[in-house]
Structures are given as C-alpha cells and as structure tokens.
C-alpha cells in the first residue's frame, strides 16, 4: 500500500502534462473545472493513472470523480483490492 500523500503526489505528477495553465495542484483541485481539461483529455489522463498504479478506473467511475483527492481515494480502493 502507498501512503495517501504519495498517491496524491504521484497523481499531481501525472497531471503535469495536462496542466497547461500551470495551476497549483493538491488534493482539493477540481480536475475538470480548475484545469480546463476537455472530456478526452480527462480520459487520456486517467489512462496514465491506470497504468502507473496498474489499476482499472472505468469510464463510468470517472464521471463521478472531481478532485485529485477523490481520484486518489479510488486508486487506493483498487490497490487494496489487488
């Protein structure tokens, strides 16, 4: 298991190529709203997260995830299952 803070930090790193405006990233960052990433960009970013952590994040779940913290929690839940 990874610590929550490490998962959040890694997600922030994976988000960098999608953070064109250079916004400060943290657990409370609302990914689609604050980073102005379009729908396809969000899905591309999620693929990077899936591959880094080797977990599955179905598209249906992505629609309900807003913040980096929520994404981190979902990743953690999948890591616990593995």
């Amino acid at each position, binding site marked *: 298991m990874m610590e929550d803070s490490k998962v959040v930090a890694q997600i922030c790193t994976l988000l960098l190529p999608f953070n064109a405006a250079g916004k400060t990233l943290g657990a409370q960052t609302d990914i689609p709203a604050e980073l102005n990433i*379009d*729908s*396809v*960009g969000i*899905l*591309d970013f*999620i*693929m990077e997260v*899936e*591959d880094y952590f*080797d*977990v*599955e994040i*179905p*598209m*249906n779940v992505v629609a309900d995830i807003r913040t980096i913290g929520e994404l981190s929690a979902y990743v953690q839940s999948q890591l616990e299952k593995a």
Partner: protein
Amino acid sequence: MVDLLDKHRGIAERFERLVAMGSNALGVTNDQMISPTRAMVGNREIILAGTNNYMGITFDPRCIAAGQKALADFGTGTTGSRIANGTFALHTELEQELAKFLNLKHCIAFTTGYQANLGMLSGLAGPQDTIYLDADSHSSIYDGCTLSGAKLVRFRHNDAADLDKRLSRSESEAGGRLVVLEGIYSMIGDRAPLADFVALKKKHNFQLLVDDAHSFGVIGPDGRGLGNEAGLEAEVDFVIGTFSKSVGAIGGFGASNHPLFNTLRYAMRPYMFTASASPASVATSLEALRILAAEPERRAKLLENSARLFHGLRGLGLETGSDVVSPVIAVKCADEQSTIVKWNALFAAGIYVNMAIPPGTPNRLCLLRCSVSAAHSFDEIDRIIAVFMAVVAD
C-alpha cells in the same frame, strides 16, 4: 433561475472566434449539389474533398430511379418503428440482401448509422458486462457504450498489448466482455490491426465487434470491410455499418451469425423507439448495395484516387495521420488557429475539407481531414493537391 444554456457560453464564444476568422467551417451550406464531388456554395463551385462519399454513388441514375419508385409505391415515410407499423417489404429485402453481401446469417437495419451503434452496443452489453473500446472510437461508439450501462474500459488506440493488459486486470469478473474496434478510424484514417486483436481471443474470453462505418464497401476483396481484408471474418462476432458513406444514403446496420441475433430487435431501444428509415432511403441503399457488389472496379478506383491524394499531399511535406493509404487522409496542423486559417484559405480557393479540432479528435490533433471518392477525377485530385501546396504547405 439557472439558465440551462449558461453552461454552453464557452462553446458560443469559441464558435464566435471561429466565424470571425472567415467562413463557418461547421455550417457550410451546399446550395446545389452538382455531382458527388462538386457543389455550389453561393455562387462558387466547390470541389468536395470531405464528404465520406467514398463510392460517389449519390447521383447514380439507378439509385435515383429506385428511390423515385419507392416514393411512388410506398410513400414519403413509414410513420412508425420497425416493431410497430414501420417494417415495409423494402426493409426486410435490404436486410436479406445485406446479409447475403456480408456472407452472414442475420442483419438488422437501423434508421441511421449513429443509431446502429447506439442500438447494437446497448443491446449487446448490459450493466453486468464490460466493454473495452479503443480510445479513438467514434462518438457514436462512446454514446452507445454509455447507453448500455456496462462497465467501460478504454484502451490505447490500436494497441493490442495495452488491451491485453486491461483484459487481464479484470479477468475474474463475472459478466460478458465485448471488445469494440473500427475498420477505418474516422479522423485519422488508419485501420485496426485486426490479427493482433483476434490473437487475444485465444487468451481472454470476449466477443469482438467491428464498426465498419468507413470501411464497409471500401476495403477487402469483396468490399465487406476490415474482417474481409484481413481474412478474419469468422473471428468477428458482430459487424456494424452505415449506409451514409459508401452506400450514399442514410441508415445503418448490425449483422452477425449468432443464432440469437434477431432477438436484439426486441432489446434495442434505439431500434424499437424511433421511426424506421424512409422508403426512398431504403430503396436507394438496396440499389447501391447491388451496384457495389456488381462493380468492384469502384473500389479499385477509390484506392487509386486515395493513393494519388495521399502521395500527393505527403509529397508536399505534409504530415498525415496515417502512414498507409486510406480514403481518409488527415493532414496535421500545428494548432487550432492555423487550422482555421488554412481551412478558410482552402475553402476560398474552392476546396472543401473537414476541419477537425479537439475534443473531436484524438490526442488533441488539429486536422484538415480529406475523404476521397471513387468519383473524383484525377484532375480534381490534382487540383486539391495544388491548392494544398498553395495555401497549406509551408
């Protein structure tokens, strides 16, 4: 009160910026169609190089006559769905002819290609199932997948190894698994490497669906699409296609050898709860299908024209989305601004292509998307290349 349209203000502003740069690339009106490859827009004659009219069959006198006869014999519309009063003899004849063309046992015709994807995907998969879809799939595939309620897993474009990895992650889960590919991908024009994906069927349990919207009638020795071209038709469990491209009408279909396939007629909401295709459209589709079967030289001409445009554009130093000859030839541009400028320059010089910008494109690509027709003359192809050289190539 919250104004429901407020959320679209960003789209409105982006659209206004687009129009301010010239013509409205997203709303070109053809005032008169002169031929499959020429139209009048206002008082200007335009060469059409972005219509998906691959076989150039829209003005075939046999198709027009068939449509006129259907109008006279069956009227202007069906006024009902296929499961109510909307099945005419023409619909069943089209389905039978299409099944014969595809060498499959069963075929279901839909009112549009979009609805074929909505219907087939939502009919095949349900909330207990998983659909694996290529990241570059057409929006109608995404929408059909969403409508199904299935778990949706996206894999990297044309990457069978990536799909292998994702299938392995959920190997033990209950429920069916459906993998969805496209014959020719609509934006880039590349094909799915079918053999690579078929090889995975031996390792993982899944059923395979190919959307041949851009490849039906276009590729394969018999024009049956990707499976036909790859010699792997028996491995494709379900085929989807459209009548709005190579067939030159409107409508769509799903087809399969599965013994329960026709049960889908009573399980697909986009099939059951919409009016069936109009008699004239069905009749022209039927006639066009017969012509495509009888005249394979049309495919050879399309390939010849595609190669001429592909090599011509690449000869200008332009980067295309696909490295192989395809009737869809997407020229990559640096960014949205320059794409709009170049699209306007092409249009002003009498060439219509599709302007494709994010999020409608994979990998945020900005594209000048050409589609080739068998009806293009070499002179028209050469004119398209010459205009690209003048206004697009650096």
